[in-house]
């Protein structure tokens, strides 16, 4: 097989990464999606847009956030030198805000006044509601009823920020179903509404655009590790639902062959049971505007995903990840719910940092391989968000006895 000179050039002009990506949407939306594509191409090339984006990341989001050497985790794992990229320290508590800043600037540039979004764990909903408050735009967030129940603090945050949270009860009432309803809203309000997609999926140009906005993560890691250690990292580890925090970390390093890159999917109850590992347990298909790996049956019906983490509970994955999987550049592995819960506790107790359950999947996989690696191996784990939102889920998973009656 021919080896590529670059893994960073995609997608092609029609939005494809190999056979993945594209624009599989209803005709009503096509003209608007073509407008978004043109508007983003112009914005990307406009120094004023880029300057405003960078300025807001610095002044409002609080970037750059630290690349923190996790001494206690490193000692506990007993191998590789572990660094945590602290996206949890961003305003609103996760990487999601990076993309929302970029897209709200684009929506304003396009003259849109109403913003819709879907959210699983609520982090993208909170980030969207936040930028809508900042720019004075109307905000409607679609969220599965199941997720509303398990992420109540974020639901309140969105409402406090002025967003309308619309519960979605179809299907399993999780992220996939919220995305269906967001698309229904968009098709019905196409003239004044901008759909602010929260991950590197959906119709072109969203996967590329969200990746570009999130690439600030990897760009900072590159500069920070060079400053700290004088060389590139040996490995990068990030969790994958749709895959935006992972793509943001990975993309600036894709052409650095010495860097081992690992994406960690949610294996839920196990790969032979209910899970959300689309690459490990799915096959290519078309949903929500793009071709990618999907959990589905032989009839092409989409399967319900499961993860203890609402943010990973989606049967698909961004198309660029699907392509990186098939090209072999990135390793995709999976971690089960209970392993993520253990890693969550480990990070909390050893580092005093409560990680998001999503990020705990990355930490869990790191805990498996770090002990096998030499002490001079530099490993960067993306701590994509903080775990405040997950405390009730964790309490339920651990039961009373572990928390000494606190629950």
């Amino acid at each position, binding site marked *: 097989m021919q080896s590529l000179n670059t893994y960073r050039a995609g997608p092609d002009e029609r939005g494809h990464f190999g056979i993945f990506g594209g624009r599989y949407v*209803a005709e*009503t*939306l*096509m003209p608007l999606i073509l407008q978004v594509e043109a508007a983003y191409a112009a914005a990307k090339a406009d120094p004023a847009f880029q300057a405003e984006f960078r300025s807001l990341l610095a002044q409002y989001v609080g970037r750059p956030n630290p690349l923190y050497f996790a001494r206690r985790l490193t000692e506990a794992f007993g191998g590789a030198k572990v660094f945590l990229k602290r996206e949890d320290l961003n305003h609103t508590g996760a990487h999601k805000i990076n993309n929302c800043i970029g897209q709200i600037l684009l929506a304003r540039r396009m003259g849109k006044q109403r913003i819709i979004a879907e959210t699983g764990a609520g982090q993208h909903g909170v980030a969207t509601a936040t930028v809508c408050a900042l720019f004075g735009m109307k905000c409607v967030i679609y969220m599965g009823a199941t997720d509303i129940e398990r992420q109540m603090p974020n639901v309140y945050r969105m409402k406090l920020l002025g967003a309308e949270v619309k519960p979605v009860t179809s299907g399993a009432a999780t992220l996939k179903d919220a995305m269906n309803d967001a698309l229904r809203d968009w098709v019905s309000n196409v003239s004044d509404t901008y759909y602010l997609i929260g991950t590197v999926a959906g119709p072109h140009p969203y996967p590329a655009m969200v990746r570009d906005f999130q690439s600030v993560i990897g760009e900072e890691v590159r500069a920070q590790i060079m400053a700290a250690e004088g060389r590139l990292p040996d490995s990068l580890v990030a969790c994958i639902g749709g895959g935006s925090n992972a793509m943001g970390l990975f993309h600036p390093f894709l052409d650095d062959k010495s860097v081992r890159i690992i994406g960690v999917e949610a294996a839920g109850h196990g790969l032979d049971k209910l899970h959300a590992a689309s690459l490990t347990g799915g096959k290519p298909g078309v949903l*929500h505007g793009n071709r990618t790996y999907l959990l589905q049956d032989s009839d092409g*019906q989409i399967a319900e995903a499961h993860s203890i983490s609402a943010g990973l509970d989606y049967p698909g994955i961004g198309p660029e990840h699907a392509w990186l999987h098939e090209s072999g550049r990135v390793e995709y592995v999976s971690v089960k719910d209970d392993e993520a819960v253990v890693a969550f506790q480990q990070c909390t107790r050893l580092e005093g940092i409560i990680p998001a359950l999503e990020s705990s999947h990355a930490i869990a996989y790191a805990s498996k391989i770090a002990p096998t690696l030499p002490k001079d191996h530099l490993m960067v784990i993306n701590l994509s968000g903080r775990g405040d939102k997950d405390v009730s889920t964790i309490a339920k998973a651990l039961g009373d006895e572990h928390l000494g009656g606190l629950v």
Partner: protein
Amino acid sequence: MSRLEQRFAKLKAENRAALVTFITAGDPDRATSQALLDGMPAAGADIIELGMPFTDPMADGPVIELAAGRALKAGGSLKQTLEMVEVFRKTDSETPIILMGYYNPVYAWGAEKFSADAARAGVDGLIIVDLPPEEADELVPHLRRSGIDFIVLTTPTSDDARLPVVLSNASGFVYYVSIAGITGTASAAQSAIDDAVARIRRHTDLPVCVGFGIKAPAQAAQVARVADGAVVGSAIVSVLADNIGKPSAVSAPLALVKDLAEGVRGARK
């Protein structure tokens, strides 16, 4: 001449528009759905659109979304949908059947194999809601070879610059989605439909059928004055949903089809 061409030629000779009726294959179960499908032509349906049930029908409103859910729960599948067409063809070789649905089940079946199998079952046309012209190249050549029409959707957002792109792959007829929205919700103003149909006719010689938001016979009649067909879906599925489990599960929706047909047939008199 394809079944669709024959049907539109016949309708033209009668100086009337087509009534195009929609149901979801397998809703609420195989037997009821088959009886409804088989009874459509006698009730007055000129063309039948059969929905291929899908778990995530994101361009549909609640009525058709629930229908797809019922069908899937009762064992509905693409295979069963094709089997229903085969059974229908045993008693009716003239009424065109169009399958309507989303791309993933077809993609999972395989574009080439699906085209051949659907043609063999007696399918005349295909509408894939989430396959815009920009992505249709991987399916349309296979459909062509199998003699199945690729029926495209045009919408209020398809302007004069975009229409030629949308129509480039079209055959059979053009389906004008009269609202920017999902199925079974709002209805468009008749004047807007008149203008849109006239605009589409400037770009194509294909018949133009209008759907989304047509619920009543009088409304269907208004559309039938200007268009070559009126498509009714959610209203029929809704009557079916109200009668599930009753002896009227088949007769009630067919009674609505009969009323709609009278509306359409009387439109140009």
